[in-house]
């Protein structure tokens, strides 16, 4: 029974840890499917987290916090679009720039506005997204097996967790069952064809980037308003890059993205849980190895040793209209 409880706990933290990855990964999916590489997921998440926690603390409302997070994150996505779509700049350079601006400005502004060493004020319960207890969770809790699964794993998460997982089928639907999705995929593979059909490549790519901004904003808000009761400097800690790795791992497909993020989330949860205690058969695994595993797996995948990851064909190439 102890073993079972431990597994439930690890899976529960797997869900919590994979939510920001999942949101950021789906965010990246929109822009990369439209042919815009986005190294700046990390930075957009960070500004989202900062803006969300600041606005929630100032206006005492979680919803205003979330709205601000999305707004600021979209603004950064539009800067990326302005550089890489309108001015046909290098998309990777632009993404790197956004990460730096985000990392610096969140600390500087946080310190100037709140004077707490780059933190935002601790959020009160009303300023955060509280856990939602599903009906019957309390009653069923003591039933063996099903009880803990329902009460711990399914119930008791914040609304943003359910939103993140709902975004998986929604993104699939948008991508593969709507006109917008079809065009977006087309613009990532062959923008000239889309242009020939009389559809604006730039506007499509901008819209994809707005979707990216919304999702990274929610991811940031989750970090600072659900997982943590306030913003801490550099709180994304490379999650944007892991999300990027997950996106490649998922071969740019939404359902795969969910499993990739759950896998990476699980590695993280297991690393925290084990903290150097020995595993059966394998023995003691260093924490650093578990932390590096997502990156190592992604490199191995990229090298083509586990299937082949083929990115959208027009990714990273600015579109120049033929004259």
């Amino acid at each position: 029974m102890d073993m079972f409880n431990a597994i439930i706990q690890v899976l529960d933290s797997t869900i919590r840890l994979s939510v920001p990855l999942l949101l950021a990964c789906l965010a990246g999916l929109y822009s990369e499917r439209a042919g815009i590489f986005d190294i700046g997921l990390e930075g957009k998440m960070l500004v989202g987290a900062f803006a969300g926690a600041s606005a929630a603390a100032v206006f005492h409302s979680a919803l205003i916090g979330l709205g601000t997070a999305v707004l600021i994150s979209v603004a950064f996505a539009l800067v990326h679009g302005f550089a890489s779509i309108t001015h046909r700049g290098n998309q990777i350079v632009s993404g790197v720039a956004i990460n730096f601006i985000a990392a610096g400005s969140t600390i500087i502004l946080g310190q100037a506005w709140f004077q707490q060493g780059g933190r935002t004020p601790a959020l009160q319960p009303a300023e955060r997204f509280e856990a939602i207890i599903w009906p019957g969770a309390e009653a069923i809790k003591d039933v063996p097996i099903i009880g803990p699964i329902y009460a711990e794993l399914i119930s008791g998460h914040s609304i943003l967790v359910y939103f993140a997982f709902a975004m998986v089928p929604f993104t699939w639907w948008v991508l593969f069952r709507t006109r917008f999705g079809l065009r977006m995929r087309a613009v990532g593979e062959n923008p000239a064809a889309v242009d020939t059909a009389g559809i604006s490549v730039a506007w499509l790519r901008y819209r994809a980037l707005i979707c990216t901004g919304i999702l990274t904003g929610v991811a940031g808000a989750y970090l600072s308003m659900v997982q943590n009761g306030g913003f801490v400097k550099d709180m994304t800690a490379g999650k944007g890059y892991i999300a990027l790795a997950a996106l490649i791992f998922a071969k740019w497909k939404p359902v795969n993205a969910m499993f990739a993020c759950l896998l990476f989330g699980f590695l993280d949860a297991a690393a925290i849980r084990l903290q150097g205690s020995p595993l059966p058969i394998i023995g003691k695994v260093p924490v650093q190895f578990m932390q590096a595993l997502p990156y190592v797996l992604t490199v191995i995948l990229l090298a083509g040793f586990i299937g082949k990851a083929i990115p959208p064909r027009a990714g990273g190439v600015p579109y120049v209209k033929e004259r």
Partner: protein
Amino acid sequence: MSTPYTKLPAWADYGLIPLINLSVAFIVAGFVVMLVGENPFRAAVILVDGAFGKGTGIAFTLFYATTFIFTGLSVAVAAHCSLFNIGTEGQAYIGGLGIALVCLSLDSVLPWWAIFPIAIVAAAAFGALWGLIPAYLQAKRGSHIVITTIMFNFIAASVMVYLLVGALKPAGSQAPQTRNFLAGAELPKLNWIIELFGAKIRSAPLNICFLLALVMAFLVWLLIWRTRLGYEMRTYGHSPKAARYAGISETRIIITAMMISGALAGMMALNPVMGDQHNVAIDFVSGAGYVGIAVALMGRLHPVGIVLAAILFGMLYQGGAELAFEMPAISRDMIVIIQGLVILFAGALEHMFRPYIQALFASVSPKSVGMQAVNGKGA
């Protein structure tokens, strides 16, 4: 990389446009300073004075610049081959491992001038090796070098943390770092050069690596513009198809360029490790690899430009530290914003003002932009 824009006179291309881009970056940074409630002009004065006002300041500025020359050159060498090496950070970190192994085993037997060359080779070799794997994967398996080098930065960080809290940490110590090197692994300071000019220096870490960096800048210039290999790299960077047609081996050129880039990145570690800290600590690179991207872009991938840009960033680092004393609202993280803005305006948005400047040149003298009809091409 091909640009759909017409030509400008060389001085405008290499002087005017970078200057405009840079100014815009600093103007935006000025707005951030205003947002924080400080006076941007006063901040700029404090910054420049902190960097160049006193001898110690100059020495510190050049010390930081040394680090950035290495990382800037590293990014630039790869960029000439149209490879975006974001992995400079990790390559420098692993370069530090090479230095640690050399210094820890030899510092009690050899003097500094014997250890230094060995350490240079070790740092370069370790950095190059860390660049080799992404290069091989790019050349042979088509894995995108940007993604693999990012992944390798994280892997490098994990490897180094693992070693620094484990095998490399002296017994009984709590801090995650190697033991301090003995005198044999301490590089001589260069502060006397600045003192020749009459300035006083209290203690600054400017050391012999600065000269090594300048030598490397010259060698990179030689490599890129005066050797066959450099010509091949530029050809490949300009048009991989043309390079293939000319019989240049894609695999060889990618791997060579990335290994040189990695070696330069690895050498960066000499400056802080042997010149200043005298140990290898966790996160000693602290973002210098990423600064290299800004430096390379600002220096337009030319060694002279890179040295100048590195000195500018050295100034920002040193002046920024002074600024943090004078204006508590502005911490050193302000530099991170400036760095980001420079990368944005000098890199991603480098063509933003071009059409306007072109129009200006065309209206003054159509010949200077090689145009017959003034309204020939729009933006």
